[in-house]
């Protein structure tokens, strides 16, 4: 098992690396083209470990961001492969970091914890070695170097499988430069891919460099993401010595550098920071073992499909169905139509199995075991649902996908690691349904918002897989209604208030409130409708019919001492008001991504005291975003002493580019403005 491998070099098509900002940049690295020109003036930086330049110590702040707490002056990774007698092929990663401490809050960066595998399987053991650390200070204009004392390196057992090496660099203060380097050896039997390298972090990076040398018997696919250009992008063919003559030979060496990367700051309405950070990812494409031929891993989508189909934890699970026969027969005897079968199967699995909160494309300990435990990850639950639906002779197939927190699915790069979730897809004549039974309160066909992330890959029982768009028919929908009377004698607005939660609003409501005492929702409603006296609260359809809305109704009274004889002001958007713009930043460099569409409606009828009327009726307002992406309509009407107010905010599109940001912000702005305007009501003079 530990013997390494041999092969022939794989050749990859090359897509040109583009350098547009604000575009997804994807890089296929070819094995063919060496010396791929980097197109930049070759300005290089090669520091020496243990030696510091005076300038780094003298700088008191980083010119590109004067308030940064620290700047990473140098972040270097060099990954190599080597042969170890006991462990076979191991990855050796040299890490080297140099950080300038600019503020006190960054002092903790001098405390480092490195966790590594140290479990019972000896051949998988990781090691950390060659650990060196330095702190540089300028004392009385002299460079003073303090070296990390080996005795102060602590090694703690974290769990049965992991240990942690901890060290604290000495004499670190504001203005210090700290530096440390170490090598980590990781057997391929523990992990087959190098870790993702990030060129960016929470403070500015002046120079981030990643090198990797790949021997001929290994083939990796590399993908880049983010918005920063490469300063150096170099590859060359070299002789690779892994320390075992049989495996030595031609290999490829790469060097990637990003210069002056700004700090990455999280923004609201993004999928996950990994979709926006500048980074490089790896996936193993093939290993060539001498005498055993070439083991290919996913390389084309067809191969990814096949890998999944052949995996015991995925395709294998879909071929086991004995545990579901009993329920299948039960459904078959009662269900009258395919729709009914689907719904019954869905509700059965939804109620029977509890989601443990974990995502997953594949089952961890077997679907059967999870089924017996009545608890499992998303894959356990949805694979048993798919199996059951297939047993019921429905055209049901898995769709593997990447959830929002896992990041955008890159269709251009066939990789198994793209996926972290699986749902079911049912085709019934013209109709198609997406099914995810992890959510206790989702109706059949409704996907949780986490799952709505562009595209998934449909894997039919027979034939080729294909990409399918994960569209939701559901949005965040909320309708609030007020029927009220204005009582000048008592200075009160009183009437009834109702709210209906639909779509994701209903799912969220049910998930939050269904399992706890009703008093909690009452308290929250009182918090939402500050100053209101609420009576006779009734909540209907908490969970009887998940397709229907949750309906809340109550009576209310609101004291308003502005209600004076002769004339008064009334803010008619008493509930459901957009009190502030959810988009706060003036500028935005990343696209906007809302989980799902929304529709918030508000209808109010106010009965004015006899003889009172609007001083002037506001003009109706309609604001639209281009291509029907969003619409806001607002109208006030008067009929005798009745005033009717209608407000409707809808957002159909969920993804907006950075260029569209200002329009979306302005759209919300108009809603906020409109909702804050009071009406002027006067006693008619004649």
């Amino acid at each position: 098992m530990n013997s390494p491998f041999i092969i022939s070099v794989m050749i990859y098509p090359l897509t040109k690396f583009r350098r547009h900002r604000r575009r997804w940049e994807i890089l296929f690295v070819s094995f063919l083209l060496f010396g791929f020109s980097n197109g930049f003036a070759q300005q290089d930086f090669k520091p020496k470990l243990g030696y510091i330049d005076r300038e780094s110590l003298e700088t008191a702040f980083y010119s590109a961001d004067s308030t940064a707490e620290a700047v990473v002056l140098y972040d270097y990774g060099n990954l190599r492969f080597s042969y170890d007698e006991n462990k076979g092929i191991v990855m050796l990663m040299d890490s080297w970091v140099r950080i300038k401490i600019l503020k006190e809050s960054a002092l903790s960066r001098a405390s480092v914890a490195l966790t590594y595998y140290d479990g019972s399987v000896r051949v998988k053991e990781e090691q950390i070695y060659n650990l060196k650390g330095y702190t540089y200070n300028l004392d009385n204009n002299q460079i003073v170097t303090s070296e990390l004392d080996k005795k102060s390196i602590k090694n703690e057992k974290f769990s049965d499988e992991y240990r942690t090496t901890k060290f604290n660099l000495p004499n670190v203060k504001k203005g210090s430069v700290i530096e440390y380097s170490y090598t980590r050896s990781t057997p391929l039997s523990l992990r087959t891919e190098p870790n993702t390298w990030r060129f960016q972090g929470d403070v500015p990076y002046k120079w981030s460099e990643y090198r990797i040398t790949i021997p001929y018997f290994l083939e990796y696919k590399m993908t880049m993401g983010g918005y920063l250009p490469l300063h150096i992008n170099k590859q060359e063919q070299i002789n690779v010595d892994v320390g075992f003559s049989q495996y030595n030979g031609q290999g490829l060496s790469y060097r990637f550098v990003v210069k002056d990367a700004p700090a990455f700051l999280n923004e609201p309405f993004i999928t996950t920071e990994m979709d926006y950070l500048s980074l490089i990812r790896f996936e193993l494409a093939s290993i060539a073992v001498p005498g055993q031929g070439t083991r290919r891993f996913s390389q084309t989508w067809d191969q990814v499909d096949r890998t999944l189909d052949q995996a015991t934890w995925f395709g294998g699970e879909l071929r086991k169905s004995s545990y579901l026969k009993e329920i299948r027969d039960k459904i078959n005897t009662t269900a009258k139509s395919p729709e009914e079968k689907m719904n019954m199967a869905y509700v059965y699995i939804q109620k029977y199995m509890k989601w443990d909160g974990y995502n997953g494309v594949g089952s961890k300990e077997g679907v059967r075991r999870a089924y017996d435990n009545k608890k499992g990850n998303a894959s356990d639950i949805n694979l048993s649902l798919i199996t059951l639906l297939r047993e019921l002779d429905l055209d049901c197939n898995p769709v593997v996908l990447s959830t929002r927190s896992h990041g955008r699915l890159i269709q251009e790069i066939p990789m198994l690691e793209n996926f972290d979730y699986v749902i079911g897809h049912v085709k019934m004549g013209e109709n198609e349904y997406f099914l995810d039974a992890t959510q206790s309160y989702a109706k059949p066909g409704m996907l949780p918002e986490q799952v709505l992330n562009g595209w998934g890959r449909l894997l039919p029982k027979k034939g080729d897989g294909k990409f399918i768009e994960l569209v939701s028919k559901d949005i965040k929908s909320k309708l609030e209604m007020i029927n009220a009377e204005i009582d000048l004698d008592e200075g009160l607005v009183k009437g009834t208030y109702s709210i209906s939660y639909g779509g994701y609003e209903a799912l969220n409501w049910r998930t939050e409130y269904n399992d706890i005492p009703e008093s909690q929702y009452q308290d929250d409603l009182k918090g939402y409708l500050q100053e209101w006296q609420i009576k006779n609260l009734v909540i209907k359809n908490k969970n009887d019919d998940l397709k229907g809305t949750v309906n809340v109704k109550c009576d209310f009274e609101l004291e308003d001492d502005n209600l004076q004889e002769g004339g008064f002001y009334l803010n008619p958007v008493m509930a459901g008001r957009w009190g502030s713009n959810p988009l706060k930043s003036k500028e935005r460099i990343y696209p906007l991504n809302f989980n799902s569409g929304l529709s918030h409606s508000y209808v109010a009828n106010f009965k004015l005291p006899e003889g009172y009327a609007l001083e002037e009726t506001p003009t109706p307002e309609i604001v639209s975003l281009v291509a029907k992406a969003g619409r806001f309509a607002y109208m006030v009407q008067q009929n005798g002493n009745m005033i009717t107010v209608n407000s409707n905010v809808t957002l159909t599109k969920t993804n907006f580019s950075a260029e569209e940001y200002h329009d979306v912000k302005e759209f919300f702005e108009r809603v906020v403005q409109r909702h804050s305007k009071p009406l002027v009501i006067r006693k008619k003079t004649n």
Partner: protein
Amino acid sequence: MRFLALIFSLTTGVSAFAQEDFNVAKINLSLSDQANAVVRISETSWEILSKSEAKRRERTVVTILNEQGEDEHAQLYVQYDKFTKIADISGNLYDATGKLVKKLRNADIEDYGYGIAGDDITDARIKVAGFGKKAYAYPYTIEYSYESRNRNMMFYPRWMPASDTETAVESAVYLIKTPAGFNFRYKEYNGAAAAGKSKDKDGADLYLWKLENRPAGNRRDSYPLPVMEASPMVLTAPAELELQEYKGNFNSWQDLSKFYYTLNAGRDVLPASTQAEIKNLVSNAKSDREKILLIYKWMQARSRYVSIQLGIGGWQTIDATAVANKGYGDCKGLTNLTLAALRYAGVTCYAALIRAGEEARIKADFPSSQFNHVIACAIAAKDTIWLECTSQTTPANFMGTFTGGRPALIVMPEGGKLVMTPDYKEHHNVRTRRTDIKLDANGDGQLSVQTSYTGLRQESRKSIMHSGNKDEQKKWLVNQINLPSLDLERFELSDGNGAEPSVIEKLSIKVRNCATKSGTRLFIKPNILSTYYELPGITERTTDFYLPPADYDFTDLDSVSYIIPDGFKPESTMPSATITSIFGSMESSAVYTKNTLLCARKLILKGGRYPASEYANWIAFLKKVRKADRAQAVFIEKVD
């Protein structure tokens, strides 16, 4: 009979109730009604073997009613270290009828190191046990028990069986067993019933505390009392103890002080190079105060905090030489270095033990190890200067929410005592703001705002000022400003001058719709930037309520001047309000002269503990303040 059976069960570790029935139907509905879980049985036993060793046994049986209850109780966590040995973790799971369905296996117990980060070095570990792989239908019942041997007798267990407000308690007991005539100390708090005393057949002394049928508390109490003030609790402590080669007694604060002194004596020798540095540093200092400030600054500039909890080192400092050479240490180490430097410079100073954290306080009437932090206390003539040695940015003598306003134990060989650290009341925590607004005819405004923050009020701003970069600071500020939408064009945060720490914040903000234009009117808010206090969901209460001083002890001083655009005249009368109450006071007013609307607002709040009978007054006060803050001035276009 039950009492005896119980003691038997506690001392043998095996359930003595022949037929313990965990059927869920047996739970009184008044207990489970608002609860996520019900503790059916909680047994803690502390068997003192000698001054240096004790045996602890824990057994809990909890019925889990829903997912929240599961999150809280499904797993057992047992922390241990070099002084504690854990033995015999066992567990059972019962279905709703009380039938045993599963037993805990060894494979269900995991073991982890306690500290994960590089700046958290510890030998403490934790065992985690659970039945988590399988889903069980609610309700179901979990039983856990374990036994440990303890050789760190500074800490006797604190008993607080109902600390989680969403869990009801059917029955909880705490038993202490000692050799005949063995002396130790205890005290009950917050309504915990007095101990029952007896002897077992071998003549050992038994002390037993019980709590029964306590329903779950209020789920979302907006103003909960600190748990140490509300939940029944028994504190226990040694009278005398032995810890490795150290002997001491804990009968008074003076005794504790002496014990810590002994534990740490002789560890304050500075290396020669550091002595030279200090000598040079204070050579021109004219007073002790000046020396203290110089040494504190020196220490802050050359050190950083790293948590180190190793063996007896959890209570004993690393020696000053090591800290001086490495430039880092934990609170004990950094305080010890500071004290060593101060002493070398001839300043009188002491270590002070304290319970740090917002709202964390010790029970001053029960001398025992209730501390989690050490600070330095230096004497300058008649003044005491407190020094927080783990922070590089805190000004000298500023204790803030972390250690302010609470007793600290001064560590001395003789005569150690509790001393209060500086407190921060409403007249310390002041926000003074001047806002100038230029309005245009559409209601859009250009704001220029200058604010100074003092006392506890400057803490969060100082923190973002010291740690955030420009973008983070801007984001943070935008989120602090209570306006529907705004464009923060420029901002500046800086330290104020003056003896007490303060932050000056300057903002330049463009606000669309700053005043609401509706038809021919402009609706202007005199209170434009100050945040509203939310009304709580619950309008009645039967228990005391608590307004944490960190949030509710303050003074707000606002003056806002609006320049009204040409062509408008006031329509309404200008709002004004005067409110007084035991909770504070408010005055607000607006005056219109020569195209300028001048608004003033002064709000003083006094936090603390208030009786339930004052709750209605508090709500009424809040409503009045909210009303005054909502008031608008209305201007209308002039018709020529």
